[in-house]
């Protein structure tokens, strides 16, 4: 497939716009010197990703991403920033002084990943995206074939919840705990 053919598809214009937004905001996530901005840029990245999922007709995953991440995880991040009183202004040394190493390592990784993708999938097209995966299919898969991981992942969340609270809570002094049940 030549570039002309590729660019002639309208859906690819949409992709270009969304992808630029995703990539641009992702760059800001890791470079922004304002922590709150960084979090908000992550929101944009995730929203863009959700848009990509819609392009790929994965509506359910797109909404899960929006609900779980933008609805919950991002709030957690903001809480984290507030609690740890991360510096919210500019120019307070949010990055360490080893950017060179980081740049080299991550560029090398990007080169390897890209090379592998390009050589493997070349210009293979996504044909027949269709109406998208019905939620029913996902539901049946999750509660049928994948019921074991589905049930088990609940314990990941349980452990994270209970352990997280235990780890993060401020310890009461021994006197407070005397005679108290929990």
């Amino acid at each position, binding site marked *: *497939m030549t570039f002309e053919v590729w660019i002639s*598809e309208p859906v*690819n214009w949409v992709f270009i716009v969304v*992808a630029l937004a*995703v*990539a641009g905001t*992702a760059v800001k*996530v*890791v470079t922004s010197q304002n*922590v709150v901005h*960084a979090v908000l840029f*992550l929101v944009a990245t*995730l929203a863009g*990703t959700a848009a*990509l999922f819609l392009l*790929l007709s*994965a509506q*359910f*995953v797109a909404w*899960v*991403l929006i609900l*779980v991440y933008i609805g919950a*995880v991002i709030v*957690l*991040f903001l809480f984290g*920033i507030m609690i*740890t*009183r*991360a510096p919210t202004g500019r120019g307070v040394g*949010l*990055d*360490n002084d080893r*950017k060179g190493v*980081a740049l080299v*390592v*991550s560029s090398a*990784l*990007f080169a390897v*990943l890209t090379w592998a993708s*390009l050589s493997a*999938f070349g210009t293979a*097209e*996504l044909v*027949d995206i269709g109406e998208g*995966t019905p939620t029913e*299919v*996902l539901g049946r*898969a*999750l509660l049928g*074939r*994948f019921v074991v*991981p589905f049930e088990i992942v609940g314990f*990941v*969340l349980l*452990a994270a*919840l209970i*352990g*997280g609270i235990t*780890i*993060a809570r401020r310890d009461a002094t021994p006197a407070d705990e005397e005679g108290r049940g929990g």
Partner: protein
Amino acid sequence: MIINQFLILAALLFSLGVYGLLVRRNAVMVLLAVELMLNAVNINLVVFEAAIRSTLAVGQVFAIFVITVAAAEVGIGLAIVILVFRNRKSANVDELNLMKW
């Protein structure tokens, strides 16, 4: 659309995540970078699912699991960061070097 346009975007996000993980001093910012990496994986899974179109929508199911686990990881990570902050009054990861060699 071709597969690679998504894959390369995912590779870019993943590498940006790695970059962020390597340069960010604040532990919360490091966690943000990790989210970028996991998000890149989700893009991969969803695009492969679109290409393969398995009967069980395995790629999407996998992505849902990754999202769930990522949420749990954020919870765990923030709890640890808060713990560290409480003891050291700082959440900067490069100040943690009590143990070495």
